[in-house]
């Protein structure tokens, strides 16, 4: 009797916290939808801000949409190029267990570093390199922000690969590099893809890291060395104006950002289904 009561109580508590989390998600989506949808129109998605946009006149946020995609896409690519060798080293090549532990600890610390710190660091780095706030600067700052997430998430995926699978490759006389590139990466591909997506989502939604490093502009991104706009900053600037129409547009921008992340998640799901075709379970 008592046992059953306990069981029901705890199941009840679990359901309550689940409902709370889902409720928060629904509230966020509802807020963005209700406040943003009325302001959303084709012009917002297809035009850049015109004169007086921030006072409620015509224009759109195409500069921020393309800017964000360029920033997050570039950063994810750059970060992936840095993360893959690190992951392969830690998982396949490293022999010194203490070095591996130290590397993991550093990455975990980096993961915890607030993004404004990456922004400030990126800004210093830009000054040192003699660059100004630019697409390149934003990509570098975001890539650093993504790196620990990417490495740790990819490592989790690699840890799930059965040892026997690697052994099967070694037993044929394959080297560690051949085994890594042809077997391990292939088996891990769907998981690695998910990790990339996680990092991309983190990068595209981040405002603090791009504030000083990428700057802001009303133009479309055309050069790596020019400033670019981004959606989180578009939300931030528009929300800070006293004009109600512009504040509505901030919610519309947030809606666009949310939808982009949603589309990418769904697209990745479909793609990773194709990638799992050859996976061994």
């Amino acid at each position, binding site marked *: 009797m008592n046992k059953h009561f306990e069981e029901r109580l705890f199941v009840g508590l679990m359901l309550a916290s689940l409902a709370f989390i889902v409720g928060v998600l629904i509230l966020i989506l509802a807020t963005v939808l209700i406040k943003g949808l009325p302001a959303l129109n084709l012009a917002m998605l297809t035009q850049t801000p015109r004169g007086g946009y921030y006072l409620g006149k015509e224009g759109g946020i195409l500069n921020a949409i393309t800017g964000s995609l360029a920033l997050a896409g570039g950063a994810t690519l750059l970060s992936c190029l840095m993360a893959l060798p690190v992951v392969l080293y830690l998982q396949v090549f490293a022999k010194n267990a203490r070095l591996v532990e130290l590397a993991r600890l550093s990455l975990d610390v980096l993961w915890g570093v607030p993004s404004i710190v990456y922004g400030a660091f990126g800004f210093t780095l830009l000054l040192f390199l003699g660059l100004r706030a630019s697409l390149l600067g934003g990509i570098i700052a975001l890539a650093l922000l993504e790196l620990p997430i990417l490495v740790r998430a990819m490592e989790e995926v690699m840890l799930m690969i*059965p*040892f*026997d*699978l*690697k*052994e*099967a*490759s*070694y*037993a*044929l*006389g*394959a*080297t560690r590099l*051949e085994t890594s590139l*042809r*077997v391990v990466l*292939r*088996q891990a591909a769907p998981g690695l893809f998910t990790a990339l997506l996680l990092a991309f989502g983190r990068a595209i939604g981040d405002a603090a890291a791009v504030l000083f490093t990428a700057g802001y502009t009303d133009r479309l991104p055309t050069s790596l060395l020019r400033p670019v706009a981004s959606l989180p900053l578009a939300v931030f600037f528009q929300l800070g104006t006293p004009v109600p129409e512009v504040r509505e547009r901030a919610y519309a921008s947030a809606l666009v950002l949310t939808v982009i992340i949603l589309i990418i998640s769904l697209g990745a799901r479909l793609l990773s289904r194709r990638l799992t*075709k*050859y*996976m*061994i*379970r």
Partner: protein
Amino acid sequence: MTNETLIQIRNLNVTYGSQQAVQEVSVDIPAQQITAIIGPSGCGKTTLLRSISRLVELVDGVRVWGEVIFEGQNIYDPRVDVTEIRKRIGLLAQRPFPLPMSIYENVAYGPHIHGIRKRQELDAIVEKQLRAAGLWDEVQSRLHAPASALSIGQQQRLCLARGLAVEPEVLLCDEATSALDPISAQRIEDRLLELKRDYTIVLVTHILRQARRLADYVIFMYLGELIEHGPAEQVFNHPREARTRAYLQGELY
């Protein structure tokens, strides 16, 4: 049938940390015969088998000393290229682990990494080895389907074909039928009897009847030590050691 020695194991020791898995083992493995390593579980059979192609080294914290002399050369010599050794001494593992690729690519993987790039050559190897493994008729119409779609018995024959494709001289089988249904197991056994004409086979088994069916030569291990070895007929019918006799009668676990 020849009685030449292909592999000489001399004073081989393997430790995992403080645990000694193989202790001072010395034995000759005859060429083109099936040698069965038998013994209770945890007696070091698998470790001994895996040290013949240095696969044992992949485990963290392992230490190996002693010699395994394969065609006149100690494979533990630091100058030896370990990938070359593993190419010449293949493995068929306990559970089939196809590579995450198509059936065709699984067989072509080995030859490809060892430098065979011509499509026609690879096609020929794939067909030849799938036939040798007794799988060709079942898969020839779907060579580019994922290997994971095969049944577990078919997967094990695919792994056999994959191993044969690098043209090894020795085939190590680590309880290669224990995860299979009886019919699939029977098929693998038939293949092995067929293959011993061209290959030297060393297998680990805990099924005594399987050892009796297949083995020409038998090595009995107990607690990391080699207790007795000799021609199958002699070890099974006239074991010299009391522990061998006890194991054969099912009294030793």
